[in-house]
């Protein structure tokens, strides 16, 4: 307990800012509590609000390895936990055909034939790692049940080798885009935080932190424009990642302020749905706001 080298939420918040991640008080509190209480932290929010980034920053902040398990439809235990290297075993069987000793069969299931996948790696690394289970909503619910078992114990029994258990559990960040509701049993295990789109000032700071070559005024223009776009009736609301991309794109073109023309030329880096672009196109003057004139 309390393996976090920070005495308070504020200290953690400052440290995160030092890693160029600007977390609000709520998120910082959630991270602080999750690590202190050894609970997985479930982060939900729209795409591009920086859910995955939390794990990366936390790992570098704590000086731990980041172990990432990217979920996808159809992922199963052999892709998440461990697998035997069957081809290697097959070759080994061939090679020792002349030798009759039973003991060699045992050798086939030795550590050198084991292919370690993210979950096993996380169990072995224990508190030396941050485990990121990314986009869990994409996996099937059977996999979610399996993950719940692992998260409850941080131990796994490999029949041929024996039990592998983490002395201290790793820090765990689970993210979901909410394409489906996660099971309650899993949610009960976790602390939960909903990440919203940041407020304008905060977003400007994020752009400045992430894209230092973008001038302040331009960063503010872009962030304000994205904020107005989000209020539009569009299907895919742009995330912070899009704001940063857009700022990069505009800065690369060498303009100092965002005007309508530049916005039209670079809108593809912020709106990635054809209908959204069509909807925004005639209203770009409104999106750019008064920045173009000043």
């Amino acid at each position, binding site marked *: *307990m*309390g393996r976090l080298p920070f005495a308070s*939420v504020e200290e953690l918040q400052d440290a995160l800012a030092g890693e160029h991640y600007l977390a609000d*008080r*709520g998120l910082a*509190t*959630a991270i*602080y*509590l*999750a690590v*202190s*209480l050894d*609970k997985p*932290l*479930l982060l*939900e929010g*729209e795409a591009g609000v920086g859910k995955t980034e939390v794990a990366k920053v936390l790992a570098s902040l704590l000086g731990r390895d980041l172990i990432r398990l990217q979920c*996808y*439809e*159809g992922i*199963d235990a052999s892709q998440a936990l461990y697998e*035997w290297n*069957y*081809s290697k*075993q*097959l070759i080994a*069987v*061939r090679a020792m*055909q002349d030798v009759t000793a039973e003991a060699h*069969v045992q050798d086939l299931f030795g550590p050198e034939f084991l292919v370690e996948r993210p979950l096993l790696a996380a169990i072995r690394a224990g508190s030396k790692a941050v485990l990121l289970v990314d986009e869990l909503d994409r996996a*099937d*619910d*059977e996999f979610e*049940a*399996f993950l*719940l*078992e692992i998260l*409850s*114990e941080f131990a796994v029994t490999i029949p041929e080798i024996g039990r592998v258990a983490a002395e201290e559990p790793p820090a765990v960040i689970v993210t979901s*885009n*909410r*394409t*489906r*509701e996660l*099971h*309650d*049993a899993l*949610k*009960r*295990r*976790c*602390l*939960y*935080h*909903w990440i919203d789109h940041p407020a304008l000032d905060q977003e400007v700071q994020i752009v400045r932190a992430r894209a230092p070559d973008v001038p302040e005024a331009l960063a503010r223009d872009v962030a304000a424009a994205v904020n107005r776009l989000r209020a539009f*009736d569009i*299907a895919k609301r742009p995330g912070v990642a899009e704001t940063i991309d857009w700022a990069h794109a505009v800065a690369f073109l060498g303009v100092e302020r965002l005007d309508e023309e530049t916005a039209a030329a670079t809108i593809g880096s912020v709106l990635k749905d054809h*209908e959204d672009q069509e909807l925004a196109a005639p209203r770009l003057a409104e999106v750019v706001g008064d920045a173009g004139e000043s």
Partner: protein
Amino acid sequence: MPASPEAEALDRLIGFGRELRRRGLAVGTGRIVTFCRAAATLGTLDRTDLYWAARSSLVSRREDLEAFDAAFDQWFRQGVRLELDLPPTEPEAAERAAPDGSVEGPEVVEDRIVAREWRALADEEEAEGEAAIRIVASAAEVLREKSFADLSDEERRRVAHLIRRLAVQVPVRRTRRFRPAPSGPRFDVKRTLRRSLRTHGEPFHRSWRDRASRTRPLVLILDISGSMAPYSRALLQFAFAAMAAGRKVEVFCFGTRLTRVTRTLRTRDPDRAMHEIGRQVADWEGGTRIGESLKALLDGWSQRAALRGAVALVCSDGLERGEPGLLREQMARLRRLVHRVVWVNPLKGSPRYEPLARGMAAALPSIDVFLPGHNLESLEELSRALAD
């Protein structure tokens, strides 16, 4: 237990958890324990700390945040400042949170049990995936052909019962996951090797893997305005049958605006659910804004509900009060997102019907299957149409 300041503070925290539960949020003992531990970890808390500690440990759905905020404002109204000088250990908080003696330990065990049962359930679902179509061949031939709008109350009850016995078939899709199969496109090195160990490492028996299949989710979008109500009620029963068959089903009702009723349908008693939906959906007798409702569905739910790759079933007469252009656009969007669009229009039951209504004409280009669905017989047809 002596009433020390700590104990009082703890009572306050636990009381808050119970208050949330009283307000209908899913707050179990485990969560209350976590909340107390979180508060204890932070030590001295002002209202902001307390808010975030409570929110991250007691709520796990965005929809619940509003209710949570309201409860929090009431419960911790005054300038709260708690000093918890407790060791943030589990047992004490646990014992106090649950007078019945259940502590964190059993909950972990319980989680594991839940996980196991849940897995068993998923296996079962998969096993019956290939079940054959069972169509109700009953003596009630007359009932089969009578339009839902002309049924007496008694007949409606009997038909509702029959609809629920329809085995709703939903097409399967191939998953990315490979499973052992008698033959298949992929060589199963794993099993081949295991079996070869029995024959001195000689791989006599070769094993194969093939892709598994899963059923597609079903999304019902039902028009409940005026004249459509009897048909939509019948389709709600149909949704019930689909859910009972273990399918993933999402149900939305609309008149002038969209309401999600999936949760309400997920109870055991269909009649109560119908009653509840009637109460929930305010505009049973209002006009129809199909385009707007579809837009609400696609904007608000395409990220959350299982729409992608699903079979969407729209039931409406297509008498659109809104802008037909919007309907055309939204239908095209729906068509791109889902696997297949089935439109049920009870008016089509009349032999003289032609899809001339402007709304219907706008929707038509994006419809894969167009069916009447006005009586039991046509629902059977619908069930078959969904299967292939």
